Each structure stands twice: as structure tokens, then as C-alpha cells.
């Protein structure tokens, strides 16, 4: 790791002010991606601004039909949260199959979505559930927040403070886990809103990062069942292909994972 200057902020305002005073700063949340990347010398921020001790970024709130997870809440605390399990158990499940126990103690939902890895799990949940990303400046619909590989709508020095999820009628998530990295080789989140809209998002599949899957949405809208997806055809064009799986394999995984997710959602 190259030299860096470590700062710890106690409030969001302090973090933003520290960021403004540095030349090439980065915010540090749980560090489970940023630190490995810095160790590989693929990132070399002049300053790190640690958000880990900011109390206003911690916690989960359930208020009516909206579940709000503050950005600094760790995966472990999300998994354990009675409100998450009650309102959107699919999020608790998604979190339980993300990384490994030691990573789940440190990693945070804000860190995950700010990084927007094309194979990360949370982006699929945000997109399928129609979540809203709250920052120190504004609210951004998930639709507009994720903008391709490792790219988001966040501006320099903008901090995610929370994610709000409308509580759905039904939701489910399933993924084919890469056995070594635990990332999604392909993962699909399906949701049926309380007004009957169906939204399906796939991660780990597209070359442009997390994406909606309109063909599966239409099939499930007509008939919410795994069998409804049998006849859907998913194009392999623009899907990821690597040593772990071809684009055609991932196209098929989108269908299979969607079917399993519908079964899980009930």
C-alpha cells in the first residue's frame, strides 16, 4: 500500500470538510473492498476519511411501508435486524450469503453500493425494490444511481447517508455463488410491489453492471410463478463472459436464478 493519511470523522459534516481539505481523498466505510484495492496499489488516495465511527450513519428504521438502512450499517447488523427480517426478509437472506462472516462484520451497505461492483449483491436489491439512495445533498432513485461498472451518480465528496426501500408485497433473491470470491456469478432479485408492479434485477450478468430484466418482469406480471419464466428467452449479447462462465451460460443463469428467487419469494 502506498502512503496515505488516515482521518477519522465523527460526523458527516466533519467528513465532508476533511474531504474538501485533501487533494485526492477517498471515504473509507468498512474497507472490505477499498483496502484490498489499495494493497494491490490499484488505488492510492492521498487521504482516507474513515466513516466507521459516525453514529448518524448507523442503524435500521422501519416506518410504515418504508425500511431505511443507514449507510454505515454493517452486513452483520443488517442480517440480524428484526426490522429487516420482518419487512424484507429477502434483504436479510441476500446479506447472509454475501462475503463471509468476517467480511460481514466490517462491510457496509453504503460502501457496497458506492463501489457498484458489477457482481455485488445489493445493487440488484436496490434496483428491483425501487429503493432511494439518500446522500448528504439529495435523494437519488436506484434507477439513476447505478451508472455502469464501478460508476454511480455520486459526485466528488458526496456521502451516502441511507437507503430507503419501499416494503414490497413479495421479494426473493437467489444467486449462483462464485465458490472462491462469494460474489454473484449471476444473481437475480425479484420483487412484486404492493401496487402489483413486478421488478426484476440481475447482477453479475451484464457488461454494464446491474440491470433490469424486462422480459422476465412481463412474464411474472402475467403469472407470478417459476414456470412463467420457462418460455422467456434472454439474449446473451452484452452479457459478461470470463473463465467462470460464458455469456450464454449467464443468460441461462438469469432465468434459473429468477425462477429460484420467485420460489423463495413465495
Amino acid at each position, binding site marked *: *500500500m*502506498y*502512503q*496515505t*493519511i*488516515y482521518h*477519522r470523522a465523527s460526523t458527516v459534516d466533519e467528513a465532508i470538510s476533511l474531504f474538501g481539505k485533501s487533494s485526492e481523498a477517498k471515504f*473509507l466505510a468498512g*474497507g*472490505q473492498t477499498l*483496502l*484490498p484495492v*489499495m*494493497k*494491490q496499489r490499484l488505488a492510492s488516495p492521498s487521504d*482516507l476519511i*474513515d466513516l*466507521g465511527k459516525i453514529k448518524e450513519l448507523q442503524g435500521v428504521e422501519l416506518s410504515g411501508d418504508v425500511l431505511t438502512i443507514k449507510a454505515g450499517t454493517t452486513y*452483520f447488523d443488517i442480517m440480524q435486524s428484526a426490522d429487516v427480517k420482518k419487512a424484507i426478509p429477502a434483504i436479510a437472506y441476500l446479506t447472509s450469503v454475501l*462475503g*463471509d*462472516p*468476517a*467480511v460481514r*462484520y*466490517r462491510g457496509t451497505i453504503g460502501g457496497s453500493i458506492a463501489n457498484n461492483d458489477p457482481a455485488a449483491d445489493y445493487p440488484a436489491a436496490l434496483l428491483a425494490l425501487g429503493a432511494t439512495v439518500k446522500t448528504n445533498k439529495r435523494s437519488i432513485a436506484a434507477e439513476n444511481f447505478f451508472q455502469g461498472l464501478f460508476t454511480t451518480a455520486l459526485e466528488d465528496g458526496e456521502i451516502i447517508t441511507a437507503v430507503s426501500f419501499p416494503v414490497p408485497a413479495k421479494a426473493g433473491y437467489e444467486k449462483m455463488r462464485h465458490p*472462491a*470470491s*462469494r460474489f454473484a456469478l449471476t444473481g437475480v432479485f425479484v420483487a412484486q410491489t404492493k401496487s402489483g408492479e413486478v421488478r426484476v434485477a440481475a447482477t453479475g450478468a451484464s457488461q454494464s453492471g446491474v440491470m433490469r430484466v424486462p422480459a422476465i418482469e412481463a412474464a411474472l406480471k402475467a403469472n407470478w410463478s417459476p414456470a412463467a419464466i420457462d418460455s422467456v428467452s434472454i439474449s446473451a449479447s452484452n452479457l459478461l463472459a470470463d473463465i467462470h462462465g460464458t455469456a450464454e451460460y449467464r443468460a441461462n443463469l438469469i432465468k434459473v436464478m429468477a425462477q429460484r428467487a420467485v420460489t423463495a419469494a413465495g
Partner: protein
Amino acid sequence: MSTVKLTVNGKAVTVDVEDRTLLVQLLRDHLNLTGTHVGCDTSQCGACVVHMDGKAVKSCTMLAGQADGASITTIEGIAKGEELHPMQAAFRDNHGLQCGYCTPGMIMSAIDIVHRHGGQLDEATVRHELEGNICRCTGYHNIVKAVLDAAGRMKVSQAAE
């Protein structure tokens, strides 16, 4: 440079380190606690797992500064004098190690697993929960046996306290 104050195995320590110092480097290079190992150095293998405020974390994926004010327990801090921790004793009795390189991390993760699951542990749970710890010798079979054995022993020793 920053000054990091933390408690390690019950002892208060103050260390001056470069800001880029990892927690595992503080433990091994500054405090000579070399029981915590660096295996992959890429957050995959779990040889570097220690407890921070009771939670099993990868000390190669944390800056020393992030542990400021925390209480750290390493493999050196779990035995009571000559008496092995029940998890250490179970690893010995069940031949849960061969070369031993992964063992400190395995044991620290395994203690955390038992603390979280208590008497609810079964083989499938242990295997799922140990996925952040990689062993290249044993094939995991005896490690899983040791963790299940220790879960019983830890229940007994907690009840006795």
C-alpha cells in the same frame, strides 16, 4: 504517523505507526504477536482473523487506525495460562490441523461461530460459517469435527463459570 491506543489480550498498548499500517502488521511487527498469520493478504484465507470487540475480523483488511480504542484478542490471548482454550484443546484432540498455518485464524473464527450459534451448531452450519477460512491440508473434515466438539465443551465450561 499516528498514535494508536488499543487493548491487546487484556493489556493496554500505545503504538506509533504509519497511517498505512494494517492491524495485522501492528500485531506482528510492532507487538511481536506472530501467532496471527498472513496467508493470502487478499482477504480470502482468514489466517489473520482476530477478535475486535468480540467479533472475528480479518486483521489484514483493517488499518491499525481503525482499531484505535478497540479491544483485540489474538490467538495468544485465549488460553488461561497452561490451560488451552476449549477450542484449542478440541483442535488438538480431533487432529484439526496438519501444517498449522491456518489454525490461529480457524480457531478465532470458530470461537466466534460458537458464540453466535451456541448449542444450535450442526455440521452444515459450521461448514457454511467457515467459508472465510481456507485450509490446504486437512480437507476440513477434522476441523469441522473439532468445532462441533468444542461447541459442546464451551457450553460446559460456560455453565461451570
